[in-house]
């Protein structure tokens, strides 16, 4: 039965990769995802898997080679962080519009300026409109589980889109924690063999990929791609259900923690959500109705579903571990804010930027946010709703 282990997030994802034994992995090292190609190279060097690893000369080539490999019919993955993802940016769009189910293990780290190696979501958020499915993990367990589910979602015939499985740099990728792993056979059966319908190396049918398309075709192609992203929502839920039957671990588009009767809700992504849960438990002991909505799936964006889950809240803090320099808050704030409006939610909303470049987020920080929410619920948002937490001022 389930295997109790302790490992870091990077080890956990590498373990999932080992169990899946994909066909091809091009990668270029970048902190904090470097361990992933290292682990895979070691597995190969010791005959534990027979994936073909391509030690490319850059991340641009990493994604380009992934596109070539996936188009050729190989189950393909890569891993990167931060500037590496930014360097892939152009070709991320190509992978998605080519409808190639590549998996990318993203270890979130801030984009440079200034140079820093710590956790931030500016890398994946920068690629949020590239057509990739994005799933985020709170901890090593979720990073592992998400990767096990990734190909099932990406390769589904109604989807056929690349998928980014994200975890927080260092906080998740390098921290050793307890984890429950699945047996190799279970994972292998769950993920299954990859049988693409069309591919370059199909002896019975040629394929041409990546055309120039005039305006009269391009918009239709993008509409079809948008449909695939819409379809992904149900597929993610179906795959999660099947995963739950196998593992006992339940996943949705997002997680609600003590949200049902919550007056004050925090909406956040990633590792800080665990810290928020501790804060919520403390506050609940004091009678404060605090809750959390943890976003797991950012693309496709479950706006309506989240707005409905937040329908009874009096005040909501939407937390972005990312600046978008819109002078109006981060991307989650913008998108969820729009969804709340469309759903006619009446809550007061704070758009909070936190945790940039690895700035720590403590239980006490969350307690203060809930205090602020209680205040704005009564008195309304007096100052700007766009705020920073954890910055010296």
């Amino acid at each position, binding site marked *: 039965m389930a295997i109790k282990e*302790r490992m870091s997030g990077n080890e956990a994802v590498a373990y999932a990769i080992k169990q899946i034994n994909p066909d091809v992995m091009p990668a270029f090292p970048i902190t*904090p995802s470097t361990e992933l190609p290292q682990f895979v190279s070691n597995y190969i060097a010791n005959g534990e898997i027979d994936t073909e690893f391509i030690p490319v000369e850059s991340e641009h080539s990493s994604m380009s080679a992934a596109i070539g490999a996936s188009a050729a019919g190989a189950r393909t993955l890569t891993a990167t962080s931060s500037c590496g993802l930014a360097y892939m940016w152009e070709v991320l769009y190509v992978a998605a519009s080519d409808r190639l189910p590549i998996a990318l293990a993203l270890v979130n780290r801030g984009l440079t300026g200034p140079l820093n*190696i710590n956790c931030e979501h500016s890398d994946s958020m920068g690629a949020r409109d590239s057509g990739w499915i994005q799933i985020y993990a709170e901890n090593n367990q979720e990073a592992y589980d998400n990767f096990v589910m990734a190909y099932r979602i990406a390769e589904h015939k109604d989807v056929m889109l690349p998928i980014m499985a994200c975890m*927080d740099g260092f906080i998740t990728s390098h921290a050793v924690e*307890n984890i429950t792993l699945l047996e190799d056979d279970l994972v292998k059966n769950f993920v299954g063999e990859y049988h693409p319908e069309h591919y370059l190396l199909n002896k019975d049918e040629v394929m041409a990929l990546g055309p120039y398309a005039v305006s009269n075709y391009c918009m239709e192609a993008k509409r079809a791609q948008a449909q695939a992203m819409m379809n992904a929502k149900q597929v993610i839920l179906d795959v999660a259900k099947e995963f739950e039957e196998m593992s006992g671990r339940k996943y949705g588009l997002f997680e609600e923690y003590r949200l049902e009767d919550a007056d004050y809700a925090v909406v956040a992504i990633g590792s800080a959500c665990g*810290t928020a849960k501790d804060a919520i438990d403390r506050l609940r002991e004091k009678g404060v109705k605090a809750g959390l909505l943890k976003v797991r799936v950012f693309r496709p964006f479950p706006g309506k579903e989240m707005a409905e889950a937040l329908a009874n809240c009096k005040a909501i803090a939407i937390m972005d571990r990312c600046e978008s320099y819109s002078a109006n808050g981060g991307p989650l704030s913008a998108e969820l804010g729009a969804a709340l409006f469309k759903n006619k939610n009446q809550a007061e909303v704070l758009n909070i930027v936190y945790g940039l470049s690895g700035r*720590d987020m403590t239980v006490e920080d969350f307690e203060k946010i809930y205090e602020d929410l209680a205040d704005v619920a009564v008195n309304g948002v007096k100052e700007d709703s766009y705020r920073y937490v954890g910055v010296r001022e």
Partner: protein
Amino acid sequence: MRDLIEIRWHGRGGQGAKTAALLLADVAFNIGKNVQGFPEYGPERMGAPITAYNRISDNAIRVHSNIYDPDFVAVVDETLLHTVDVTKGLSEDGGILINTEKSKEEIIPLLNGYKGKVYTIDARKISEEALGKYFPNMPMLAAMVKITEVMDEERFISEMKASLEHKFAKKPEVLEGNMKALKAALEQVQ
């Protein structure tokens, strides 16, 4: 053991403070605990001061922040006492372990008036005697296990033996040296 133990390690890049934190997480995991072991990362290189952390609990650990009010602190390199505020936030119900050849009396004045328990160990001497080389990890690990009471000493020794036997299957002399260092540390920490 308390419900949740939080530990902060101070060392220098390359000395193995991070490894010690991960080893402690390992042994605690092996006896069924929920654990966290993580370093604070930056571009620090060999010799620069680094920090690493442990959380050990019987319950699931969800918090993902650094540790600001540790129960215990381990200082792998005593020269850090002059530059790093190693007792910052340290609980006075807990304690601090310092790797030094100095006596407790010599060390206490360097601890900014810390009122909790102070432990010392000469990990260099133990390591050099047992292994012929300076690897402070093993003695520091054993000493921390004893101080924090994460598990009893016998259990610790048997767990470590099992895991090192696996790791050094082909190097029995290394296994023996490590075990010697662990036992010596349990005895000598004061």
